């Protein structure tokens, strides 16, 4: 039988039972949509992380308190309390090629203005922070080194925080917010950055001088993290080396002792972040693939029912001269058509889902050709794989038995 005729026959058979065909393909539809949307979400997160880390500048590096091999990493970067402000000053003063240095302290806190309350992230940083992070301002501007020296009660806030407390970004400028009852004047509103990896809103923040944060709000003496930017054209690796020996010396650690700090360059951070999101993407794709297999089993189930129901038809076709292979092709094509149609609908559904997700949440969904091709090929394979057994069952029927079947 011609392939074209086989497809025609398959279409006819599927159209004859529209609802059943749709329900049978539903597993594949959902499976394909899930794979594409899930990988899209994973990719969106990955792209965002990459963008964020890239926004840090390829000349940036971070120093975390604690050793990387002794729980420093697993216990959370910077939890060891081994970095001091003097370390930060020393780096800025003694290492050639360093452009900007900022200690970073952080915490979560309630802030208020009038009767408005908001729970947000507090960042205590130096004036260099904004240039290192390449973070611009929608309104107002950053605080300066002078403000840091005097532990001034000035603050810069993110868009979300501004809107939550003051209604609009413009309104926030010049207003006073109380951070744990200490009044701070808002001198700048940061340009929005959107959601971060794992969906945290980066604009939900308030940034103040680290001195103010440590003395007036958090009451800490150690700093978990120092971010450093290297001058353009200077070797990051060289700077890392020099910082390492400087800190080892300052912390009076002999060369054979493990350092009590960890330095990560932007490149390493990118690799780490993308590795994490890659794992997540793979995991999401894998879970969604399982639903494709379940969809395939659904097809097999219905095809088996269909073969039994159509035993007489098979008998008639065999009686008038169809070969076993013709019958095999007929049912196989039916199964594959079912799964491919399911795949196509699933692709459409994935785009719809992506549009909905992006409309109703800050999560970016980034649909690429890869998972579309993969899930489409996969659904075709599922059709062949799970259609084969029922089709072979149909093809191996005995003509006279099939004709007698009631």
């Amino acid at each position, binding site marked *: 039988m011609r392939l074209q005729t086989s497809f025609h026959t398959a279409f006819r058979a599927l159209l004859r039972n529209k609802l059943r065909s749709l329900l049978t393909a539903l597993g594949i539809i959902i499976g394909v949509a899930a794979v594409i949307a899930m990988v899209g979400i994973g990719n969106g997160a990955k792209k965002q992380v990459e963008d964020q880390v890239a926004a840090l500048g390829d000349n940036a590096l971070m120093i975390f308190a604690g050793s990387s091999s002794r729980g420093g990493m697993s216990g959370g970067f910077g939890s060891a309390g081994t970095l001091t402000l003097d370390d930060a000053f020393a780096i800025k003063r003694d290492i050639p090629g360093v452009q900007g240095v900022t200690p970073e302290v952080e915490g979560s806190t309630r802030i208020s203005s009038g009767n408005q309350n908001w729970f947000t992230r507090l960042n205590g940083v130096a004036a260099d922070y904004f240039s290192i992070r390449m973070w611009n301002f929608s309104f107002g501007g950053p605080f300066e080194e002078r403000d840091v020296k005097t532990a001034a009660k000035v603050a810069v806030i993110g868009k979300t925080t501004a809107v939550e407390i003051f209604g609009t970004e413009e309104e926030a400028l010049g207003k006073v917010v109380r951070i744990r009852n200490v009044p701070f004047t808002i001198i700048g509103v940061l340009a929005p950055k959107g959601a971060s990896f794992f969906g945290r809103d980066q604009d939900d923040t308030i940034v103040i001088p680290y001195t103010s944060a440590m003395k007036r709000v958090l009451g800490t003496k150690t700093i978990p993290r120092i971010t450093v930017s290297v001058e353009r054209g200077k070797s990051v690796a060289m700077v890392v080396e020099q910082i390492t020996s400087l800190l080892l010396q300052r912390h009076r650690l002999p060369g054979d002792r493990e350092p009590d700090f960890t330095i990560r360059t932007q490149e390493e951070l990118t690799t780490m972040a993308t590795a994490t999101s890659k794992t997540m993407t793979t995991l999401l794709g894998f879970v969604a693939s399982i639903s494709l297999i379940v969809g395939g089993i659904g097809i097999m189930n219905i095809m088996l029912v269909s073969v039994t129901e159509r035993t007489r038809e098979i008998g*008639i076709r065999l009686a*008038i001269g169809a070969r076993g292979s013709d019958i095999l092709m007929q049912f196989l094509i039916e199964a594959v058509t079912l799964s491919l149609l399911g795949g196509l609908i699933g692709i459409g559904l994935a785009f719809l889902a992506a549009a909905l997700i992006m409309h109703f949440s800050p999560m970016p969904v980034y649909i690429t050709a890869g998972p579309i091709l993969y899930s489409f090929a996969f659904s075709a394979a599922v059709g062949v794989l799970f259609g084969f057994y029922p089709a072979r069952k149909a093809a191996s029927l005995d003509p006279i038995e099939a004709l007698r079947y009631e």
Partner: protein
Amino acid sequence: MAPIIQLDDLRKTYASSEEPVHAVRGVSLTITKGEFVAVMGTSGSGKSTLMNILGCLDRPTSGSYLLDGIEVSKLSRDQLSDLRNHKIGFVFQNFNLLARTSALENVELPMLYRRTPLSPAKQREKAMAALEMVGIGKRADHTPNQLSGGQQQRVAIARSLINDPVLLLADEPTGNLDSRTSIEILGIFQRLNAQGITVLMVTHEPDVANYSKRIIVMRDGKIRSDTQVAKRFDAAEELRNLPVETTP
């Protein structure tokens, strides 16, 4: 004349759960080109079993069956399919048309499985011609459930002839039809036979058998008698003689 069918000690035994059923127990028979044979016999005498073997739908347990010079019992499944496709036309008592499929497409069906495919236009043309030939060209786009029994049997006959077989087998083709429609169907068989197609037909009714040229009677899986028809009925003439009231 060349033999179309040559059977030598053909046997068919069904291995059922209790004791084996010997449905055909040693049939030797020669049918030459152009014959019109009616097979009669009591129920259970093995007529259908024999016809199914002759139609390559079933295989004999032992014995030899030469169809147009080919030893059928040695053929593979696919080769049997091909024989059914272009050497044999089979007409069933219950028509066996594909449901929800138009008469035209039912007739086209055997052409879809040809080893040498025809163009879709050619297929349509041939199928239409076959439907015209059996007198229901006007019903080409009707599905079986929109057709009467007699009309369905005409479609089935058109289908059986579409690949120009040498042998037409019919197992009780008029079993489900009234007498007038039966005669019309027999008329088609007589016309085809006159054109050179060998016809083999199973029937219970002596009246029907008398339209053939040769009557074989079976009993208990064996041939009891084999006689030429002395006074053969002519369907066209019988139809003319039927009372006018029964004409539709």
